[in-house]
């Protein structure tokens, strides 16, 4: 039997519109296996962010079900979701929601302390992540002293500090230059190698291309579900890069 970490069954989210309801997400069925990296692309307004919010419990579906690791979660209370987000689901938002009164490293270690990690272990993991994201030098700064791109990376480190089973990310490289984007891509590659599951909603082709599998959304529905791995052989690829293809 396949081991799905995340499943949506007939998932819909409708908003009241002018007369006709807007079907932001329209009867979506999807399943993500443990350890998979999946990206979701689609034009603006196709419903991809709403889908991610439904899967992460930030919004409630109009109908349908969400299953996380064998547990139905779409009817979970706010506290139930808070517990899940602390332990098994890391969420990277478009808005960063850092705690203004805490330094960068304190923001990152907070979720680890909340699940009972020792101060030393939490600090070590937090600093390790900030290092990998190239912002270790800013660890002691309060969020208002950080640039937008630095805040975004701190928020990403915070989402990953408890090594969640599932990482949900909404435009994780939205405000970043290409160097910082490369650091995030490397980190995602590491997260993926470590066996964690990734679901990335993005416009950025480089982020989308870190995944094994691509979902394309249009008008609230998934219109395409394809695998990205297993393309060319190394030799053929190198020849193509060099422009020496026959």
């Amino acid at each position, binding site marked *: 039997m396949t081991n799905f970490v995340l499943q949506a069954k007939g998932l819909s989210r409708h908003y009241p519109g002018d007369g006709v309801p807007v079907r932001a997400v329209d009867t979506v069925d999807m399943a993500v296996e443990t350890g998979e990296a999946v990206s979701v*692309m689609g*034009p603006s307004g196709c419903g991809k962010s709403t889908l991610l919010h439904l899967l992460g419990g930030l919004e409630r579906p109009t109908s349908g079900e969400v299953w996380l690791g064998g547990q139905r979660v779409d009817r979970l209370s706010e506290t139930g979701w808070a517990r899940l987000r602390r332990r098994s689901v890391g969420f990277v938002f478009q808005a960063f929601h850092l705690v203004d009164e805490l330094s960068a490293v304190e923001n990152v270690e907070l979720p680890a302390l909340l699940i009972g990690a020792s101060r030393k272990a939490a600090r070590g993991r937090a600093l390790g992540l900030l290092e990998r994201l190239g912002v270790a030098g800013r660890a002691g700064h309060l969020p208002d002293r950080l640039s937008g791109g630095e805040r975004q990376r701190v928020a990403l480190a915070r989402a990953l500090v408890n090594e969640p089973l599932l990482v949900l990310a909404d435009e994780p490289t939205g405000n970043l230059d*290409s160097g910082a984007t490369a650091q995030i*891509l*490397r980190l995602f*590659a590491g997260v993926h190698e470590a066996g964690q599951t990734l679901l990335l909603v993005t*416009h*950025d*082709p*480089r982020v*989308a*291309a*870190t*995944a094994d599998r*691509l979902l*394309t959304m249009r008008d609230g529905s998934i219109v*395409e579900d*394809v695998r*990205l*791995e297993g*393309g*060319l052989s*190394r*030799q053929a*690829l*190198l*020849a*193509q*890069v*060099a*422009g*020496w293809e026959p």
Partner: protein
Amino acid sequence: MREAMLALLAKEPAHGYELRQRLTRALGPIGEVLNPGQIYITLSRLEKAGLVRSDQVAQAAAPDKKVYEVTPQGREQVASWLLDVSWPKVAPAEFHLKLVAAAVTGLADPIALIDAQRRDLLRRLRDVQRLAQAAPSDDDAVLILEGTALRLQADVRWLEACERRWTTRRPQ
């Protein structure tokens, strides 16, 4: 490739095998797929064109080897290659015509063509990114892979623009 070989010879004379090693080093991971035969063919063409000349050097324990050096004419060619701003052909014109052709002939759905192209480009981008991540970060040749990745990224973005344009024309 031809001009890059000339440029390496403009630095110092070399025999074929040395030249091949230097090229391979400069190309980083791509050096793996360098075709050795191509190097020798190119050298003999360069010689015929008067851009390099060769000397037979006798070796004690091995057959004679040919050492190539660049001629003044070859040196000039390297200089003008370095300053030349021509750029490899880009795909937009042809793909755009494909979309137009698909629409007018009804033989294919333009949006489906865009989807297929995006899939293919993302697959390549995925592979190229992995190569770049696996390469040692102090290898200058990583820039070749980064350049390829950035181009693929730009191409995927352009497909988004195509999609926006063609979606509005699609019969509902």
